[in-house]
């Protein structure tokens, strides 16, 4: 049983008939994900790869049961889709869109927290437990990146995740579950909030964090470890060590001002909590071998 989605998880796809939604839903199914039903307003009665499409989450849930929802709608419609999923009683939601308005992100997080739901994203590739289930967009067909294993991964990035995961695999390990929390200033779920799930997950032996400059998510992980909330070994890669101050490089969250959110600060906090940090992707191999015992 993977920690977010599994072969048994019944997944609803909101925005299933859109170009991206249809493409990735097909891939999700191919990978083994149990897609229960799809939702696209106005398209009830259509189907995609045998999955029935409904006007609304409520209509879909009249005919099907669902444990999670995968949202493939444009950024301006994500808030409404999340609220619709919550209204339907769904408490595990993945949203990948890039460009969700900040105020919408705040409303999403506030609404989700008030009903105990977990919203992953946006601006992420989603969640994958290689070989079991995928909610999002991953090149799972590249075996040198997405091999099943015992390393949990949490990431704020996209392409860099492929890069680092390739190192995990080339070090002889594999991935239990990869959670892309995304690159937004206000993501639905923060690194530290996933730690209890990874702690409880028998399939995860260690966790790799792929962070970046800006924000405080990495510092929160260090704090959770210091507080004893997470006890498994952790390694971290955080890009932007040489980034100049005040320049916004990349994601919304990736800006450093006045020393806050600097990579140096993050590395210091993490190392103080016993986390091994890699300053370049290839070092991740050494970290993992040291933490988990070396495969050559």
């Amino acid at each position, binding site marked *: 049983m993977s920690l977010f989605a599994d072969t048994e998880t019944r997944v609803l796809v909101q925005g299933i008939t859109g170009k*991206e939604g249809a493409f990735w839903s097909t891939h999700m199914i191919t990978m083994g994900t149990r897609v229960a039903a799809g939702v696209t307003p106005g398209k009830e009665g259509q189907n995609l790869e045998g999955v029935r499409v409904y006007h609304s989450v409520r209509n879909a849930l009249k005919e099907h049961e669902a444990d999670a929802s995968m949202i493939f709608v444009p*950024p301006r419609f994500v808030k409404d889709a999340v609220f619709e999923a919550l209204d339907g009683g769904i408490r595990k939601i993945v949203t990948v869109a*890039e*460009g*969700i*308005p*900040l*105020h919408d*992100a*705040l*409303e999403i*997080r*506030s609404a989700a*927290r008030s009903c105990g739901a977990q919203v992953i994203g946006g601006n992420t*590739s989603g969640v994958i437990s290689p070989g079991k289930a995928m909610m999002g*967009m*991953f*090149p799972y*067909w*590249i075996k040198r990146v997405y091999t099943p294993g015992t390393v949990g991964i949490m*990431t*704020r*990035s*996209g*392409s*860099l*995740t*492929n*890069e680092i995961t*390739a190192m995990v695999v080339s070090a002889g390990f594999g991935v239990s579950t990869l959670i892309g929390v995304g*690159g937004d*200033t*206000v993501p639905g779920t*923060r690194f530290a909030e996933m730690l209890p799930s990874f702690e409880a997950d028998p399939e995860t032996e260690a966790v790799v964090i*792929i962070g*970046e*400059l800006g*924000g*405080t998510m990495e510092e*929160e992980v260090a704090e959770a470890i210091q507080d004893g909330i997470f006890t498994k070994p952790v390694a971290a890669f955080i*890009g*932007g*060590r*040489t*980034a*100049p101050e005040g*320049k916004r*490089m*990349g*994601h*919304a*969250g*990736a800006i450093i*001002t*006045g020393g*806050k959110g600097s990579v140096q600060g993050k590395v210091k906090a993490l190392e103080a909590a016993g986390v091994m940090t890699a*300053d*370049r*992707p*290839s070092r991740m191999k050494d970290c993992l071998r040291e933490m988990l015992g070396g495969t050559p």
Partner: protein
Amino acid sequence: MKLFEYQAKQVFSEAKIPVPRGITAGPGEVTKAVGNIGLPCVLKAQVLQGGRGKAGLISVVRTEEEAVSEASRICSVPGVNLLLVEEFLSIQEELFVSVTCSPVTAELVILASRYGGIDIETLAEESPEKLIREPVDIFRGLQGFQARHIAYAMGLEGQAAKQTAGIIQRLFSLYREFDAELAEINPLCITESGEVTAGDAKLVIDDSCLDRHPQFTMRPEHFDDPTEYEAALEGIPYLKFDGDISLMCAGAGLTTAVFDLVHYQGGTVANYLEFGGPNYRKAMKAMELCLRNPSKVILVVTFGTIARADVMAQGIVDAVRELKPDRPVITCIRGTHEEEAVEILSQAGLEPLFDTEEAVRRAVAAAAGEVHV
């Protein structure tokens, strides 16, 4: 997008937050503007950077001659094209108020202090007890009692408290209305006559929502460099530096990692450019932007999912053919359809690399003049 002071002040003024009387003026329009505003008055460079006072970009002038000479001095500073000419306020006290959000708690937050006019992050660090922090439920909005609480907690009384509470409420409303990331008044001035007025005005609008506020368009002044502006118009994240290697990489995380690797390797970066995500079909434009720099090598590193490797490889090949770059192009293109990408690059005579760190080493070497490629 951060607005210029004069733009933010117009928004604030329309939201009924008092601002000083002011007029914008180009270098040649200062005399007229000063005549309109009256003397003494204040000249303020309309640039986005902070610390304008210390940088000599704000000047109180008492005569027309002084106004003209100060205006020409300020406008001679690179990047200064516009002044805000404002009435001079006799200031009794400077406060600080702002609306922002806390990513951790996902709450809207009002920050305020009796001790404004200074760098507020320093204040927060050195005297956190002087900074008032009031969280606001995003669905219910800022309540009147909260605004009053803030004003009284700042130690204000009477009319000053009342006016400040009102300003905080209006600042909150415009924060929501304008999809702002930050709305800030520092200093919020109490004048000698007891009026509360926004001395400065900062408003940062969520880039995701700029289309909802078409009155604010991105302008060259928003950028340090004209190429950055051009890239932004194309939606391509781009930052100019002074080094040798033009990065053309996929994704913020990977590009930043490559940026680090170049420096670890002893190299320097000419530009940061994200060629990936929604821009993965824009190889031509991306390479064009890289070629604007006097860089010595172009380094392409990708590891895409949706951004298909074959499409990107073909784009690079086409761009090389079309633009005939005068410098080596190093390619490390992986991810979806990477086998086809290898084929495409090889046929075009570009060596397909697979290891990011190896690609960086090659680039640094090439920039140093070592002919490796």
